[in-house]
């Protein structure tokens, strides 16, 4: 039995269904990231776990106990808010101790708990300051301290890093990961940033329009997206989704990519998924991530199926660690990820290697993965 179980959760505001039947579970000590574009219902889902929103249908269980009808303070959870929500009229110590004060914990015990948390987060020198005297990163730490001090069964993070600048965000992301590793707490984390999701999670739920599109480990989500939305949303730069045609001669299938004013590229697909044969002579969406489309020298040599084709390079973007090249296939700009020192010129043709073992196919009608 999982530690956190969400069963058939629905949430309606009047006639509008915000969450349309969510089923998610998380093991003890796991890190679940709810990710999706704004308005997908991820924050609402988190709020229902916290008890700040009532649910219409379904059940939420933590450690085998149904909590969906309990008051937020009785659920044994702690929450870190997007805006940190530090009480401006109280000192840092007062903020951290407020929950304990409300629960009637004796002052001496409160002090000990504050000191312990301050030590973990290295905010001892800030305890007597007001939130207005803190920097963004310090506020973030205090907000985490306020959550940590409860020693709850479940931590909830609502986009905690979105108010920080880019560099601090990376630092705090590592800090949260370290905190999770050292304390072994169970965390549910909401973000719209797929990199945060990939780097932090043990499980990811990709959400759209109140539904979980895919639920799995980061590797599953990244390598085996179940539909076009997940494939497109996860990964940066995004996966190339190229309209293509399946050509076949008996059981040997190949992918045909149209090009403007050039011969189409034909890629043989020896290890094609079984479902693909049904699409012979039909249109599909051919998905290939930029790192699976690279210069032949940089390609995995022992990859099972590498196909090379000459492509016309339109734009070259050197990004320091890699060089991105844009070519046009099937009427769309397609990004290839090359080594940083790849010798490549825009306006010329150069061979690109397609790693077809990493390629995925989608049905353009249903947008679902062809397996």
């Amino acid at each position, binding site marked *: 039995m999982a530690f956190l179980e969400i069963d058939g959760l629905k949430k309606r505001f009047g006639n509008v269904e915000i969450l349309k039947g969510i089923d998610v579970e998380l093991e003890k000590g796991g890190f679940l990231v709810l990710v999706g574009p704004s308005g997908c219902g991820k924050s609402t889902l988190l*709020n229902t776990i*916290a*008890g*700040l929103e009532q649910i219409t249908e379904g059940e939420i269980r933590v450690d085998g106990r149904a909590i969906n009808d309990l*008051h*937020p*303070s009785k659920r044994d*959870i*702690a*929450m870190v*808010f*997007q*805006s*940190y*929500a*530090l*009480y*401006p*009229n109280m000192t840092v110590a007062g903020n951290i101790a*407020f*929950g304990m004060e*409300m*629960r009637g914990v004796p002052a001496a015990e409160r002090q000990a708990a504050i000191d312990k948390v301050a030590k973990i987060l290295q905010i001892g020198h800030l305890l007597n300051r*007001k*939130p*207005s*005297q*803190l*920097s*963004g990163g310090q*506020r973030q730490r205090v907000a985490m301290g*306020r959550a940590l001090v409860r020693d709850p069964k479940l931590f909830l993070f609502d986009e905690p890093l979105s*108010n920080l600048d880019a560099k601090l965000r990376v630092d705090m992301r590592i800090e949260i990961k370290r905190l999770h590793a050292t304390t072994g707490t169970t965390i549910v984390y909401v973000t719209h940033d797929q990199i945060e999701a990939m780097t932090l999670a043990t499980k990811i739920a990709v959400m759209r329009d109140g539904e979980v599109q895919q639920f799995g480990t980061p590797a599953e989500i990244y390598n085996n997206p179940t539909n076009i939305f997940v494939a497109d949303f996860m990964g940066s730069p995004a996966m190339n989704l190229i309209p293509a045609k399946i050509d076949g001669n008996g059981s040997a299938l190949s992918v045909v990519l149209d090009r403007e004013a050039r011969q189409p590229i034909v890629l043989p697909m020896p290890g094609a998924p079984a479902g693909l044969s049904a699409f012979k002579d039909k249109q599909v969406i051919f998905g290939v991530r930029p790192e699976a489309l690279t210069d032949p020298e940089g390609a995995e040599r022992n990859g099972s199926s590498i196909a090379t084709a000459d492509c016309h390079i339109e734009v070259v973007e050197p990004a320091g660690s890699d060089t991105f090249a844009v070519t046009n296939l099937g009427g769309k700009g397609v990004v290839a990820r090359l080594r940083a020192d790849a010798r490549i010129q825009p306006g010329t043709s150069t061979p690109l290697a397609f790693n077809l073992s990493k390629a995925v196919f989608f049905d353009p009608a249903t947008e679902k993965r062809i397996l």
Partner: protein
Amino acid sequence: MSAVTSPARPASSGMSARTLNRIVIYGLLALFAIFYLMPLFVMLVTSFKTMDEIQNGNMLSLPQSPTIEPWFKAWGQTCVGLTCAGIKGYFWNSIKMVVPAVLISTLLGALNGYVLTKWRFRGHTLVFAMMLFACFIPFQSVLLPMATILGSLGRFGATLQNATGFNFGLGNSTVNLVFVHVVYGLGFTTLFFRNYYEAFPTELVKAAQVDGASFFQIFRRIMLPNSMPIFVVTVIYQFTNIWNDFLFASAYAGTGDVMPMTVALNNVVNTSTGVVEYNVNMAAAMIAALPTLIVYVVAGRYFVRGLMAGAVKG
């Protein structure tokens, strides 16, 4: 030559036009300020003059031999109607009425604003719209219905008196006025606090809920301590309105020892025994106006901005 100087000329004429504009603007402002402050100036100088000087001198001239005697007389001896014990008793009547009325209406307004923004219920906009409506009711129109209600409350108080030996203040004129001012102040105080709390970060309330704070604990520990600016605005507004109110005061406490300051001042001026003591009248009026001035000067200092800095992102 002319080609060189000509660009400078419009600039200099523009400069003088701007100076002229300034002179006109500041001149007008000064004129209006003088016009506005003139009565206050006359009151102030008259209150420090002797009667001889008033009768023989110029209204605008400074006192030749300044005296604070009129102020003492106004405070302790002048006649209000038939009793000649000064206005001090009435001053305290007003204080006893204003302080509870301001505090109660402000706190209730804060509570209303808190509920209307952070604990929304079905129909909260309608409730708020109706409370706003109270701000636009002309008070003359409620004089009679309110008198009926106060009469009923008085009879209820008398019943309580008979039953329990204690009437809980019902029927007392000061309590009546507090009640009336609280009721008719609620519209404004609710409006002030609702609009302030509308912008108050809801995440603070949610965080406090997760921390286990109750409805009133959140109100007392989170909302009120962070409401200083609007609290001060509301207190100044309510204090000024209630202290200066003449209509309700004269209607529900217009006679005897229970009169508030405004009614008493009216009676001081209307008392017609012998010569009209302008200096005493002016001093009494100044005393009547002082508390609102003091409230503004003292509370205005807490009109600080940026109290919410640091609550949410930096």
